[in-house]
């Protein structure tokens, strides 16, 4: 490598650190400092470490070599393509960073939500994929519709790369205008304006203390209990819940939609001797008396529980789902038959009665098996 002169840079490249549109062409020149005993023929160029063909060079003077680059692709890295002027032995004389890309497009799909009416988080999507060539800066801005001043969001990347969090000083019962500005070296683009009232986009924490437990010896049921999110007490909304559950080795979730505002639910029609994962989430609605629903919370962390193993059947083999349904239907028919016989005059066919019947059924199955008959 060339020894270094302490006084000046060995060479100068022009243009230095230019910004260019994809597809454009460029002629760059490398001029060696007069302190250095180098001629144009002693030089060569590389772009991102790859030597450029001598056919694209031209000597513009005794110590100036140019290179022609045509139809440039987008920059390999956001810090800029490295165009370097070398001396014959490979030493670096000077370099220039080329920023090749596209101007940004309007950011799209702005969605926002407020956690417990205290803050606002918004996320958006970039207009095109092409925005990765150049570093693009996103700024989320917001203002009250009826007052003039623009505010700028400060806390970015809270919910993914294209997101921002406004932690405080938000007004309720009044609309906000929200938009995102994207800017890079080649230009600026502004998204469409989204208008919303904080109260329209409220979400809350998932329910806490989710417990899943067996229902006595019942093989096809699990009982789920949870606590309403603590924020519910602080302000006037009601909550509705949803449960989803799946078998341990499946990725297919079953959703229970009609849970209403209770904090417990019974899952039925399950497979015996199986581990289930259960999650609950909450939607705050009726905020300050409105009829509108809020935004569903995240699902609670999965809670696991297993149904008791089936007493009947050889080798713990569980009946398939279809069979289970017909079994259930048959059992219900038997149940109502039994009820007619034993519940004269009682108009409350509550779940407790069903349980008692199930227990009786299992006991009677046991005695039947002991006698050696098939159920």
């Amino acid at each position, binding site marked *: *490598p*060339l020894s*270094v002169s*302490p*006084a000046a*840079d*060995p060479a100068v*490249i022009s243009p*230095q*650190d230019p910004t260019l549109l994809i597809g454009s062409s460029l002629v760059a020149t490398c001029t060696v400092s007069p302190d250095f005993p180098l001629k144009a023929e002693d030089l060569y160029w*590389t772009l*991102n*470490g*790859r030597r450029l063909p001598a056919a694209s060079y031209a000597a513009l003077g005794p110590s100036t070599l140019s290179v022609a680059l045509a139809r440039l692709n987008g920059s*390999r*890295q*956001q*810090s*800029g*393509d*490295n165009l*370097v002027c070398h001396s014959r032995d490979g*030493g*670096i004389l*000077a*370099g*220039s*960073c080329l920023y090749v890309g596209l101007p940004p497009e309007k950011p799209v799909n702005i969605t926002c939500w407020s956690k417990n009416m205290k803050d606002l988080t918004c996320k958006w999507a970039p207009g095109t994929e092409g925005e990765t060539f150049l*570093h693009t800066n996103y700024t989320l801005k917001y203002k009250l519709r009826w007052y003039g001043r623009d505010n700028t969001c400060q806390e970015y*990347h809270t919910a993914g*790369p294209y997101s921002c969090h406004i932690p405080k000083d938000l007004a309720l019962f009044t609309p906000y205008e929200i938009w995102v500005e994207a800017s890079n070296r080649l230009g600026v683009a502004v998204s469409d304006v989204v208008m919303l009232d904080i109260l329209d986009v409220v979400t809350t924490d998932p329910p806490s203390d989710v417990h899943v437990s067996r229902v006595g010896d019942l093989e096809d049921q699990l009982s789920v209990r949870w606590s309403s999110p603590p924020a519910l007490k602080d302000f006037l909304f009601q909550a509705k819940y949803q449960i989803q559950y799946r078998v341990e080795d499946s990725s297919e979730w079953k959703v229970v939609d009609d849970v209403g505002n209770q904090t417990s639910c019974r899952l039925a029609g399950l497979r015996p001797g199986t581990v289930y994962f259960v999650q609950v989430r909450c939607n705050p609605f009726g905020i300050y008396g409105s009829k509108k629903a809020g935004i569903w919370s995240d699902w609670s962390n999965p809670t696991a529980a297993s149904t008791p193993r089936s007493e009947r059947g050889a080798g713990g083999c569980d009946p398939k789902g279809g069979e289970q349904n017909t079994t259930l239907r048959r059992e219900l028919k038997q149940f109502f038959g039994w009820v007619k016989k034993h519940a004269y005059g009682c108009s409350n066919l509550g779940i407790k009665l069903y349980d008692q019947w199930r227990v009786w059924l299992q006991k009677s199955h046991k005695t039947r098996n002991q006698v050696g008959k098939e159920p």
Partner: protein
Amino acid sequence: PAGDSWGIFTFLCAALCNLPALPALNCSEELGAGQSIQQTYDLTRYLEHQLRTLAGTYLNYLGPPFNEPDFNPPRLARAERVPSATVDLDLWRGLTDNARLAANYRAYSRLLCYLRVLDGQVGTAELRHRLAHFCASLQGLVLSIGGVMSSLGYPLPAGPAGPPAGPPGTAPAPNDFLKKMDDFWLLKELQTWLWRSAKDFNRLKKKVPPAVVTLRLEARGF
């Protein structure tokens, strides 16, 4: 002769009486110098490990040829403002423990400043996150070295160990390519410093017996 012994004895008594006035000799501290040194050594090794990942990511961000394994650009005059780990190992080892520790302390303080400036300018969120974590660990190393120096009775080098506005007495790089070269050398020097510091602390560990607070009387104006 007996007179000298008596003199030394009186001298030691006087020194011991002045113990509370010596800030470096805090006998109530749980950590002996030996443990302090061990912790500093461990931190140095951890930083070495962290730097490997950080440097890999950062050099990929700078792009080829910076991330090529044999890349060795000229060390231009302006790049010499980054504290350089002396290649001459004999010279280095000939220094006193105090001098070596002080050099480490000053070097990492300045390297930390440069890294913090980098943090403010770097493009991707992932890099900023890694850099921030590394800076926090490096700040810990500076404090740890200070702790070792105190426990051995050495004075801390003067000057700010905390984050000033920018690296002392430097102008920013005149163009983006030169800045990339500066960044490359910063990471390279950090690697060399950490590699050498690990050896320094390992050697120091063997010199200082564990769980004993050593009295160093030479630098207190007696």
